[in-house]
């Protein structure tokens, strides 16, 4: 066991992404080690959602390389991708619970789809995860009957029901009151410790980022400004990072030609 040298679970090299003629990610390099909690931070339009979609294998890289748990996303066969997906869990920003199913069925769905388990085991495992996120006894409700914080927690329960090696969490605290979001942060830390998960959190909430992160990647306008431990990021002399940390509005740069082109051209 100890002979294994630790390999990064996530490796991104020179990822460049275009949407049409617009480039949204520039030469992104990104690596996450086992057991790490990594926070990807950036404002809106920084490209963090696009990076996340690549990490989830929802987008295949056309330039550069993305390897998750050793699987190259660009060249993975459907079988390899399926195997990879049983080892990762995702909690989406809005929860993305299936509205036509009860909370319990939502949480149990990955188990039922991928494992041939005894129904008793499925029931216990999925309700256990509801207990973990403090939603014990809520399995028969429909998602529409839940509050925002409860939806987030139910989504987390579904994300961890297969005991994934890798957990992605998109904006855990967006739209939640401070107490609920603090509870979620606490839960993320406990999940890593008890279930040995490697966790990637995308957020723009500084407080939560500083509390849970082992290291932070700061993304701005499609480029990685820095990756480092919390203290290093806080102490960074980089002006954009300090703008982000201190919530300073960024100065708008004006390029005369570009500006005029945008205002006058029909197909800008």
């Amino acid at each position, binding site marked *: 066991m100890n002979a294994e040298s630790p390999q990064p679970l996530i490796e991104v090299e020179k990822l460049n992404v275009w949407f049409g003629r617009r480039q949204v990610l520039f030469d992104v390099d990104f690596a996450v080690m086992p057991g790490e909690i990594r926070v990807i931070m950036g404002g809106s339009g920084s490209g963090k959602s696009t990076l996340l979609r690549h990490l*989830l294998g929802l987008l295949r890289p056309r330039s550069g390389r993305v390897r998750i748990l050793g699987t190259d996303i660009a060249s993975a066969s459907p079988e390899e991708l*399926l195997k990879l*997906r049983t080892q990762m869990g995702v909690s989406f*920003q*809005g929860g*993305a*619970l299936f509205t036509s199913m009860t909370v319990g069925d939502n949480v149990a769905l990955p188990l039922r*789809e991928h494992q041939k388990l005894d129904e008793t085991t499925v029931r216990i495992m999925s309700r256990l995860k509801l207990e973990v996120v403090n939603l014990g006894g809520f399995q028969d409700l429909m998602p529409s009957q839940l509050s925002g914080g409860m939806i987030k927690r139910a989504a987390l329960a579904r994300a961890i029901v297969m005991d994934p090696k890798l957990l992605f969490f998109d904006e855990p605290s967006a739209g939640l009151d401070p107490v609920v979001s603090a509870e979620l942060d606490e839960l993320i830390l406990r999940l890593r410790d008890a279930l040995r998960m490697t966790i990637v959190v995308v957020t723009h909430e500084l407080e939560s980022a500083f509390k849970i992160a082992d290291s932070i990647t700061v993304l701005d306008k499609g480029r990685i400004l820095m990756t480092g431990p919390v203290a290093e990021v806080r102490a960074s002399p980089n002006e954009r990072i300090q703008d982000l940390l201190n919530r300073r509005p960024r100065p708008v740069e004006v390029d005369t030609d570009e500006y005029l082109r945008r205002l006058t051209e029909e197909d800008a």
Partner: protein
Amino acid sequence: MSFLEQATKPVNRLGRKAVAAVAELGYIGLLLLESLYFAIAGWRVGQPVRVRMVFEQMRQVGVDAIPIVLLLSFTVGVMLGIQFIAALSEFGAENQVVIAVAKSVTREFAVLITGIVVAGRSGSSFAARIGSMNVSQEVDALAVIGIEPVRYLASPALVAMLIMLPVLTILANGASILGAALYCSPTLDVSIGAYVVQTLNSLEPWDIGQGLAKSFVFAALITLVGVSTGFSVTGGAEGVGRATTRAVVLSISALVIADMMFSYFLNR
């Protein structure tokens, strides 16, 4: 801007629209192949199409549509009876009404009315359901859980439609003939039973076969247009609304045009 650029602008725009249209057609073709692939061989790659979901869809697109399909095709039958009696009596050829109604109903009107009703009910509901799932990231959630969205959302719908649209068409045939019989039998001075027997005698298997053949094509068209529109929804709740309308308009147009081409080639 140069004169040349000005002059070619409409062409340019037309070109882009054409490229988009071809891309969409290609996407619809792929969707058809993929849906059929999962329905036939999905279970071998861990992506089985659940029989339970197919039955649920069959209920929604088929069984629930029976009353309205019966009502409308009955009405169309009465209408055809009125028109044919009026038109043919000018030539003193009232007794040809039976065969005229029989052929036009089985070859053309029953399947067309059924198609339009189902496009309005189910084409729009496919687009709305998948569209709103797309907007709320439920489609992404399916993908990262390892459930191919096409297998889960498109295949059961396609299979259900391919089974139920022909069934509805046969029911519509019956209701239309009955409608015509009710209106015509007093004028023709025959009993309703005799009218129906005469109808059955004047029909060849190919008349009914032609309608059924069309119903398969319509089933595929309605499903694919609805599903593909749903998958390509962007822009929140408003986008879902637009997609729903677009799905109905597009699928009914596709259906009428396909019908015309069918009739042309089959009746040469």
